[in-house]
Every structure is written in C-alpha cells, then in structure tokens.
C-alpha cells in the first residue's frame, strides 16, 4: 500500500479539510449525471412535463420505470442479454482454460505457429470482423438467433493469454510429480491447474460477462427482430423523438444499468484484478 506521504501525521488539519472539499466537489461532478438520471427516472409522467429539470427527490414514483419496462419490453431485453452473457462467459472460460493448458503445459509440433496465430488475432478489431461475420452468420441462417449472437464470441485470445500467464506460474515440479503418479492431463487440469487460478478465472468471468453485456456493434449487426434483441440495442427504441416522453429513456437507462451496478459492487475486487491484468506491468 503505497500512498504518497503527507497523509499521515504530517498532514495538517487545514490541508486535510481542503482535500475533503476537493474530493466532495469532484464526487458531485462525477455523480451528477447518474443522480440527474435517477431523479428523472423516478419522476412521474406529468411531473416530468411540468418540472422537467427539478432535481429534488420529492414525489418519487416507480410509475415511469414501470411504463418504460412495459413499453420497451425491457424484461425480454434483459433476459436476452443475461442469457447471452452467461453462455458466452461459460464458453470463454472453457475455451480459454483448455487452450491455455495446451500452451502452458504441453509441447507439440506447431506450438509456436499456433501461438503466433493466437497472437495475431489480438490485433484485429471488432469493426473489421463484423462485416464478414455478418455475412457468415447470414449464410448459416443464424440472423436473428441466439447462436448467431453467441458463437462468434465464445473464444477470446485475451482470455487464453490471461489464463496461460497463471498456468505458467505453476511450478514445473508439480507437473512432473503428477506425471510420475500417472495423473493424466484432464485430471491435472481439473484438480490442480484450475483451482490454482480460481481468482483469475473469477476476474475473467466478470470481465467477459460485462463485455458481452455491453456489446453494441455485433448485436446491432445481426439482430433486427424484437424476440432476440438485447438491452444495449433495445434501449434506443425508447427514443420516440417526443420530448415529453424522454423520461422513458431515462427510466429505461436506469433499469438497464442497475444489474451491472449491482454485479460490480458485489465483485469489485475481481473487476480491479481484471482491469489491471494488462496494465500494471506494461
């Protein structure tokens, strides 16, 4: 824990106070959009027409959120997002763990080549793949389907490399001792390797779930019907162009954001671990 000094004994009262003031000010600025959105979402319909810009938490009601839920069919949207995100997360974990195991513990001809292959995929942005994938999915007849949404996302190089990093820290002797005991690869994977990297897997799972939940470009490319629509691309349908109905958009946004807020608060530590996996060591 390294904080710059000037925070312990050597901070005088007035400097501490000044810092608190600054902290509060910044916090207000950062939270303002969220607070404003929340207030507007909790305003009743008539109230948002009469007093659209009032920020006071009075006369709060869930009516607008209920209306947004109904009109935007948010329940279905959320369910779709949830389903897709969960399946993709599981898929990514499985494919990453398997691939990482192969790269970390096995030796085979072509290993270098395959590794380079994986490495190369890191450079390719989503924008590039969507054009062709759209056509591929279309020719498979998977437009407007769950499999169309899910399958292309089931493997990521990031996930593979992340897990591989952890696997590489498993001491070689452990593997060799297990081999001497006749422990096969899959058992070693299940009983030794995976348990050892559980925190990383947790971070990867959280990260993948969030990333899939937040996807915009891919769903917008292949989903056009109402049945399979996900929350990110479905929200904008609440925009009717009618200024008086904007509170529906706000309410919908709050509902859409709520699950993620809860998930992140619950899994803060994994989030930090996931985000810093690539950053701190450069």
């Amino acid at each position, binding site marked *: 824990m390294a904080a710059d*000094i000037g925070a*312990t*004994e*050597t901070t005088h009262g007035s400097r501490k106070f000044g810092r608190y003031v600054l902290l509060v000010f910044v916090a207000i600025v950062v939270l303002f959009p969220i607070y404003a959105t929340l207030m507007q979402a909790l305003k009743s319909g008539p109230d948002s027409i009469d007093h659209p810009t009032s920020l006071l938490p009075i006369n709060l009601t869930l009516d607008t959120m209920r209306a947004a839920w109904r009109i935007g069919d948010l329940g279905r949207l959320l369910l779709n997002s949830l389903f897709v995100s969960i399946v993709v997360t599981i898929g990514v974990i499985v494919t990453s763990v398997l691939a990482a195991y192969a790269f970390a513990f096995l030796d085979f001809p072509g290993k270098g080549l395959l590794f380079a292959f994986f490495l190369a995929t890191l450079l390719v942005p989503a924008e590039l793949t969507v054009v062709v994938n759209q056509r591929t999915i279309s020719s498979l007849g998977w437009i407007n389907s769950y499999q169309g949404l899910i399958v292309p996302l089931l493997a990521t190089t990031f996930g593979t490399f992340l897990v591989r990093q952890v696997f590489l820290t498993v001491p070689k002797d452990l593997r060799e001792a297990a081999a001497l005991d006749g422990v096969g690869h899959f058992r070693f994977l299940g009983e030794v390797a995976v348990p050892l990297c559980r925190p990383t897997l947790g971070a990867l799972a959280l990260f993948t779930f969030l990333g899939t939940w937040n996807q915009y470009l891919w769903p917008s490319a292949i989903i056009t019907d109402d049945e399979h629509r996900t929350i990110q691309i479905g929200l904008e349908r609440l925009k009717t162009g009618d200024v008086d109905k904007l509170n529906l958009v706000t309410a919908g946004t709050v509902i859409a954001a709520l699950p993620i807020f809860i998930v992140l608060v619950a899994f803060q530590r994994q989030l930090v671990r996931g985000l810093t996996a690539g950053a701190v060591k450069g």
Partner: protein
Amino acid sequence: MTYCSGVAQVRLEHVTKSFGEGDEATTAVDDVSIVVEDRDFMILLGPSGCGKSTLLRMVAGLETPTLGEIYIGDVKVNNIEPKMRDVAMVFQSYALYPHKTAQANIEFPLKVRGASKADRAAKAKTAAEALGLTEYLDRKPGQLSGGQRQRVALARAIVRQPAVFCMDEPLSNLDAKLRGETRAELVDLHRRLDATILYVTHDQVEAMTMGTRVAVMSRGHLQQIGTPHEVYAKPETVFVATFIGTPPMNVMPVGLFERSDELVGVRPEHMELSANGGVPATVRMVEQLGHETLVICDAAGTRVVVRQDAEAPVPEIGEDVNLTAAEAYRHRFDPVTERRISA
C-alpha cells in the same frame, strides 16, 4: 538552510510514539532519551519491532513524536519538515529513482534545493569520487549491482553535506562478504566526513565494529547506551547481556550458579570447566569450530555454553563436569526487574 548552527548534536528527550487510537493503540517508542553528540556514530541496535526504525524516522522527520522533544543542534524540530532539518537518510532498500541515472539520483537533493546545473554536477562528481562511483554515473539503478546501488544511495546522502545522517539498515540487503567490506568503508567515511551518524541495525557485529556508541532497544524501551565495550562488558539488563555477544551470555536461574537470590550471568568465554568445585553439569554437545570449541552443557536443566581454545582438552559427550567462573566475570541481575545489580 541549516538550523544547526554548526553543531550537529541530536537530542531526544522523553520521546514516545504511539500508533492507532484507543484500544488498538500500540506504542512503538516508549519514553526514550538519547543524546547523540556531534560527530558520534550512534548505533540504534535491537531486534525487529523494537522501535529503532521509528526513532530514526522521527529524527528524519517522517514521523512526529506523540510525546517528547527532538532537538537538532539547539533547535526543536518536532514539527519542522525534513527539508528544514538538514538531515539526509539512507533507506534499507536504497530508494533510488529507477528512471534516473546514478548521477541524476545523486544530484536530486541539490536539484530540489534549486542548485544550478553546474554546481550540482560538480558536487555529485565529488560525492561519486568519494565512493568510487565515477564510472557508473551514467547507468540507471537497474544496471547496477546491489553494492553499487548502495553507494549511490550513500552518495546521494553525502552530496548535501547534511548535519546528520540517518541510516536504516543500509547493509542488510548485501551479501556477507560485501557487508564486511562496506562496514569498513562506512567507518572510514564517517571519519573523513566528520559527520554525525545515526545508524539503525539488528546486527550486533555491525554495532560493535562500527559505532562509537551503541543504544540497545527492546520493545520500544531504551535498554542501555554506552560504548561498544561498555555494553559488552557491563550490560545493564538481561536483554542487553543476552543480545550482545555470540554465543550469548549464559544467564542462569536464581540459585543455580551461586547461592543467592539473583540471576547470574557469565559469558561463554569466561566460563571454565574446573577440575574441582563449581556447579555440576553434563556435557550434551561439543562443537569444534576449528579456532575454538563450544561445549554445550546441561546444568540442572539449564543450557550452559562454554567456550574454550581449540587446543584445550575436549570433554566427552555425557561426561560430568564442573562449571566455574572468576568473580570479575560474573554479572548479577535482579530476577524481577532484570536490571544489573552493581557489585
């Protein structure tokens, strides 16, 4: 910028330092008073957790005393920033800026004080020469060995020509051989710089060989201050008696060595195996080290170590022997306070 009027004496008066609040408060330093004279090489010696580092940090200005006063020269510095105290500090891990060259590291304290580029370079060069670093000035810490890094840290400290040097276990990250060499160099540096040095360590060999005076601490309390010889020959407390000296002094329970109600201590080199008279004991273990022999005995359940010349006759394991010591080499301590009872 120095407040020290030329005399770099450090005075700690009844200094106490506590951390935490209420029930969870811990006292790291408890009512310690020490005077470090101008040009002293004062060693703060003690096991980890005894408060020596905290004391050092208070002198440097990294912590503020909870109670008591600290004076550098004639100035009370309790609430004065390190910047104004004219103190330089060498950290255990050297704390070198990894992105700066050795030269830039050494120049840093001068840069902070607004010295001109030429001035800085000249002074850095002098400091580097004093420590044999001239060839390495362009390298970054990552490209230097442990010993070289340590010297850069030292050079950075001396470049300011401060009144007081604070050193926090600067040798403990070096390997044994290097440690021995650097010890001698530090003593030499002290002489050449005519500096006042406050030096923290847990290694009693360093304390005994380098210091002009030693302050032994344990659990926040000052046990004894004196010259290395004084703390060795006349330990004030059982703690000091057993902390200094390897193997440690044999402090025997009441009644074992003498008929008295005091604890009696005798150093292994002063303990003798006598032919007649003395305390009976059985030999448990013999360690022949080449230049000396250690005979480890059991006297009524107490472990007693006897040190004798390599040439002396070596007893058998299991043999019954008698232990005795000359009066001059017997140290007596109060069994309750564990303080020395003067003869």
